[in-house]
């Protein structure tokens, strides 16, 4: 039963005060839910495995969460405009490989060049989407294949090692701030900037408007095409940052190695962090918690001592349960 408010202001809905209370509760959960879930999970692990915190468990989780977080933030921007980017994890891998190859010859210029390139890759996705008006799922499924192949070809289907100048990026991983590797801190900073961008700039509001009602946004003179390209470009950019964290951590990159399976965890992290899959709702700060939660699961199951064969099973169950809990549901919305 939806409330209808007549022109004279009287509300014809029995559950008006009850509805208001539910709405407030829903908003609170939307804001704080992911935090509660993460603390709960962390507490469970800490109780079952007290040694976890002592032996640097937090650091391990944060290091593992960093690339997931960055890719998830990029995905959150795209989900926010109502689309999806299935190719950004592949861009991460490609970016990492390119960085590994270019660090030697280009030193400090290498990260900059790679970041420009990955942003361009993302922009191409956005450009195709905005100008040909094709569904993003199918489009990025296609570009995913292209980027994957590019990774294989460029790397010659082997692992690419950084030959020289590793020091340009490795401090990101080796330096720690309050026990958290800089890679993770980088993710947090990016999340904070993303939050401010979405809430306090016209472009950010415009993106959210596209996600909530694109037709309404178009007729309100929101520059939808430019913003769509921007969202995908940002997704590419953050994928590139994620690639940097991989090089910082491993010193090498391959199409099959570290970071090659970030897509699904990153999407899950964005959604656990409260991002709506239909668009118009996201909170980058909560995506931080989403990434931590998703990163925590495999580490926690190993630490607790769950048998290796059962880890996938646990991972799947946890994802479903956590999302089922954190999802904000509107009573009348259609879930697809």
């Amino acid at each position, binding site marked *: 039963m939806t409330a209808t408010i007549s022109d004279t202001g009287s509300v014809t809905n029995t559950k008006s005060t009850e509805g208001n209370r539910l709405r407030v509760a829903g908003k609170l959960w939307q804001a704080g839910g992911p935090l509660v879930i993460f603390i709960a999970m962390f507490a469970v692990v800490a109780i079952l495995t007290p040694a976890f915190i002592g032996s640097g468990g937090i650091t391990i989780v944060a290091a593992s969460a960093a690339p997931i977080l960055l890719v998830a933030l990029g995905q959150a921007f795209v989900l926010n405009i*109502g*689309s999806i980017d299935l190719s950004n994890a592949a861009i991460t891998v490609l970016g990492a490989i390119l960085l590994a190859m270019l660090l030697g010859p280009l030193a400090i210029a290498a990260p900059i060049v790679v970041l420009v390139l990955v942003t361009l890759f993302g922009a191409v996705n956005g450009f*195709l*989407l905005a100008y*040909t*008006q*094709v*569904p*993003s*799922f*199918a*489009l990025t*499924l*296609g*570009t*995913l*294949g*292209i980027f*994957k*192949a*590019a990774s*294989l*070809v460029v790397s010659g*289907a082997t692992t690419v090692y950084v030959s020289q100048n590793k020091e340009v990026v490795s401090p990101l991983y080796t330096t720690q701030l309050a026990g958290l590797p800089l890679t993770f801190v980088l993710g947090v900073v990016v999340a904070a900037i993303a939050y401010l961008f979405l809430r306090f700039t016209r472009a950010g509001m415009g993106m959210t408007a596209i996600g909530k009602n*694109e*037709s309404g946004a*178009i007729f309100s003179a929101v520059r939808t095409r430019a913003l769509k390209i921007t969202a995908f470009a940002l997704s590419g950019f953050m994928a590139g940052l994620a690639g940097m964290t991989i090089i910082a951590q491993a010193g090498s990159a391959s199409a099959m190695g570290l970071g090659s399976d970030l897509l*699904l965890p990153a*999407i*899950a992290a964005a*959604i656990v962090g409260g991002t709506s*899959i239909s*668009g118009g709702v996201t909170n980058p700060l909560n995506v931080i918690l989403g990434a931590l939660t998703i990163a925590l699961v495999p580490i926690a199951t190993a630490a607790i001592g769950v048998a290796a*064969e*059962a*880890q*996938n*099973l*646990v*991972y*799947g*169950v946890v*994802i*479903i349960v956590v*999302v*089922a809990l954190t*999802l904000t*549901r509107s009573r009348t919305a*259609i*879930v*697809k």
Partner: protein
Amino acid sequence: MAPTQTSESAANVKVDTAAIRAREQVTARRVMFAGSGEPLALIGAMVVLIVIFSILNPRFATIENLQNVLNQASLPLIIGLGATLVILIGSIDLSVEGVMGASGVAFVLLSANSRGGHDTGLWAWILPLVLAAALGATSGLIYTMLRVPSFIVTLGMWFVGFGIATILYGTDAYPELTDDTVTLWVAKITLGLPNGFWVAAILTVLMALVIRFTRFGRVALAMGNNEEIARSNGMPIVRNKVFIFIVAGLFSGLAGILATMQMGGTSNHIGDGYLFITIPAVVIGGTSLGGGKGGVFRTAIGVLLLTILNNGLVLAGVSPSYQSAVSGAILVVAIVAAAWPQRGRLRIAK
């Protein structure tokens, strides 16, 4: 009954009816040919590809290779039937590979295999399929009852299914099927076509009939078009959705069993890679991801197209590294071509 301006309304009725009737006839004519454009274009593309690949490698156009192509197309087609049904209601099923793994491993362990298992006869079919249906039902129930988007539920079930496969597989050696008749059945040629393909073809026709002639199928189409209207019409939404996911699970399970038979054994990874073949095939075939439009014959065309493509690329000597690029590029081109005529300033595509 007091129409205040009789002359006005009478004149209107006469003139307007004529104009509107005329428009009706134009619509009727246009309607007859609408909707047949896309599949024809795809079949045309297939023909073009066949010609190109035959030129690149004469071995492509042999009967043997044709049977090979149909064999390769069988499993994606079977999975595609379930996927089409799910996509018709606007959802998605990512759990395909996990369910395949679970059913496949279950099938091996229940058949005569190198680890010492016995041939349990029909149970080797029934139990894995029940498992697959149960996984599908779980997906469907979580999706409808807890209202978790299908993307997430089936993503989780992918891991769950894969996890079950991993647990069943255990830590022993790779189990091989010891009964050769079983192993060779899928690829065996009966009446000119591989058995596996017969299964796929028969199931395809069956699904097409179900969608066209049963209430279940019609309600699925209605739900995909506008779920809200369907709900307010009192249609059995929840029941139908769960059933659809069960059917999708069954098809994945069946594919897992057949794949295992063909491989002569299995690991929990038997399903790897099928998702990214099936979904593009459905999309290229013309079933809309938003739901309500498409069908199993279109998916069949999409599957055939992609299989011909992959087969041809291999025979033409293209390195495996490039294959995903070519499939990806074809997918992009296909959807751009399909969307191009409908472009407009106000068109919304997500």
